[in-house]
């Protein structure tokens, strides 16, 4: 089973954009911002919305990628390769690595993960929020 559980947006003002989604849509922080970074991770409780720092304009601002959570990454990889003959995709580097990046036939970036992105320890302040 594979499900969409993550959307990522690039922004050159992550704090402003995160405030918008928190105040207007009621999303809350799903995990702490990594030290030294400005990326902010929000959630509606089921799907994560990552607001990626784009300070140096390395990408266009806007939708950047989405993430799929799967319960069988090897089977999913096999199906992706079968659906895109001749296009090899990177496989997880070790048994503990259960995620990878791939592209669909139109070139959209997909983050494929077994664990998903919401199994990080939530920020304590929001841990019990429903």
């Amino acid at each position, binding site marked *: *089973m*594979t*499900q*969409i*559980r993550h*959307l990522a*947006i*690039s*922004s*050159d*003002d992550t704090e*402003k*954009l995160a405030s*918008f989604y928190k*105040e*207007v*849509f*009621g*999303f809350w922080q799903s995990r702490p911002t990594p030290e030294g970074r400005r990326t902010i991770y929000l959630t*509606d*409780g*089921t*799907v994560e*919305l990552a607001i990626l720092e784009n300070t140096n304009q390395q990408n266009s*601002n*806007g*939708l*950047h*990628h*989405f993430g*799929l959570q*799967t319960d069988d990454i090897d089977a*999913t990889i096999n*199906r*992706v390769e*079968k*659906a*895109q003959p001749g296009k090899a995709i990177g496989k997880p580097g070790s048994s503990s690595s259960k995620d990878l990046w791939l592209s*669909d*036939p*139109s*070139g*959209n970036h997909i983050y494929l993960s077994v664990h998903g992105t919401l199994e990080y320890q939530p920020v304590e302040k929001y841990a019990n929020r429903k």
Partner: protein
Amino acid sequence: MNQLRHLAIRTEEPEKLAAFYIEAFGFREVREGVAPAKVQESKSFHLTDGYFELAILANSPNQSPNGLYHFGSRWTTWMRRCAGWKAGRSASCDDRQIRRLLNCGCRISMET
């Protein structure tokens, strides 16, 4: 409560891309439609993983760049929150204003 439930992709080959998501990830088709543009032969596909909808929109006339196009939220109290967020600036809150507020330029579709 607002929930992310929809992602739309524009492509010139909606059938091919829909087939990929069905075959590779097991998504299933919930409905198909005709693009709102004049090009009637272009079909759009609406797939789901059981919770989240993935819309694959035909982009034959190249109305906008191919790729990730917008995402959607199911909402109940959005207008109230929106009005609160904009308090002191404007009593009304329409889609264009929201887009301007989003300096990333993302489009958000809303449904109840």
